[in-house]
């Protein structure tokens, strides 16, 4: 009976995420990502108790459903950033597009060089954008959404880790360049670091998240078609 009920999946997800948030709060570490911790806890639990993934999925799907309205709600986030978008429009658009091209070609060249299967390379392309959009894009271009989610988190942690070093190695960078660079390459997790670096950095990084998501969704399918 329990095997067919969504209660297990939902309860497991909520409890694991709470534990993840607690560990994050205790350690204050950039590496302690609540999502990653929850993921490890849930997978361990399922493996130890020999619970099949499909049993978890019944409850998981009910939570997963909310990703679509959540994506729509990002429109409100974008609306709140409208003044920043107006002020820095060209820097944002051109900066973000350069990042999208850099990301695509690096992944394509390295992926082909390591002889990865196409589905795996396609799972990597959406990795710099915010997760709900990344999942949609991954499904659309034939990647594995679950690999995409993991890569999105790893990308975010990498960005947050390296952002302060960029300023150390290249001290001539201004706050506009830093903000847009962080938001374009490492979405919300990077933005949390940008907010620590300054107000302009934080605002531009946050604004770059949504715009980078939209532009990636438009540009990447074309690039895939062009270079397949």
């Amino acid at each position, binding site marked *: 009976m329990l095997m067919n009920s969504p209660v297990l999946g939902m309860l497991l*997800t909520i409890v*694991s*995420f709470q534990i993840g948030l607690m560990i994050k709060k205790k350690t204050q570490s950039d590496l302690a990502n609540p999502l990653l911790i929850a*993921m490890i806890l849930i*997978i361990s639990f399922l493996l130890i108790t020999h619970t099949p*993934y499909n049993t*978890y999925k019944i*409850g*998981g*799907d009910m*939570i997963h459903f909310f*990703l*679509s*309205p*959540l994506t*729509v*709600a*990002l*429109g409100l*986030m974008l*609306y709140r950033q*409208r003044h920043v978008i107006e002020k820095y429009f060209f820097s944002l658009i051109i*900066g973000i597009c*350069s*990042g999208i091209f*850099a990301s695509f070609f*690096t992944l394509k060249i*390295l992926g082909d060089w*390591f002889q990865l299967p196409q589905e795996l390379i396609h799972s*990597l392309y959406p*990795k710099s954008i915010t*997760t*709900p959009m990344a*999942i*949609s894009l991954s499904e659309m271009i034939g990647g*594995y959404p*679950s*690999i995409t*989610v*993991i*890569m999105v988190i*790893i*990308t975010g942690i990498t960005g947050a880790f390296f952002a302060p070093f*960029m300023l150390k190695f290249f001290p*001539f960078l*201004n*706050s*506009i*360049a*830093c903000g*847009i*660079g*962080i938001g*374009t*390459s*490492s979405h919300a997790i990077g933005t949390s670091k940008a907010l620590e670096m300054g107000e302009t950095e934080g605002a531009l990084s946050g604004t770059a998240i949504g715009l980078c*998501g*939209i532009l990636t*969704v*438009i540009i990447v399918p074309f690039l895939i078609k062009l270079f397949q």
Partner: protein
Amino acid sequence: MVYLFQFAILLLFWLLGEGLSLLLDSVILIPGPILGMLLLFFALSLGIVKEKQIQETSDFLLNNIAFFFIPASIGVMSIFTSQLIVLIIIGIIATIITMMTTMFVTQFLTKGER
């Protein structure tokens, strides 16, 4: 009731987004929820929808955003791949190159600004 009504507005824009996605199907493939997001942005900009009409439910979703990704990540269980370590290495290199490229291009465009 406020939360449910606001949720209904988000669902309505999702529905409109799916409709538009079908219409654009032959020209360009864009997922419905993302078009819904753009439609909501324009509706807010034009004053058709007011921020306070969707505020509470949207903020609830946006503030707990990471929670809703968990089920999608668990799917990795069923596609175990030994190449995960290669993916991670490539991902880290690509992230750094993306960040540097974006920063340098933007720096070039905004020279002189602070």
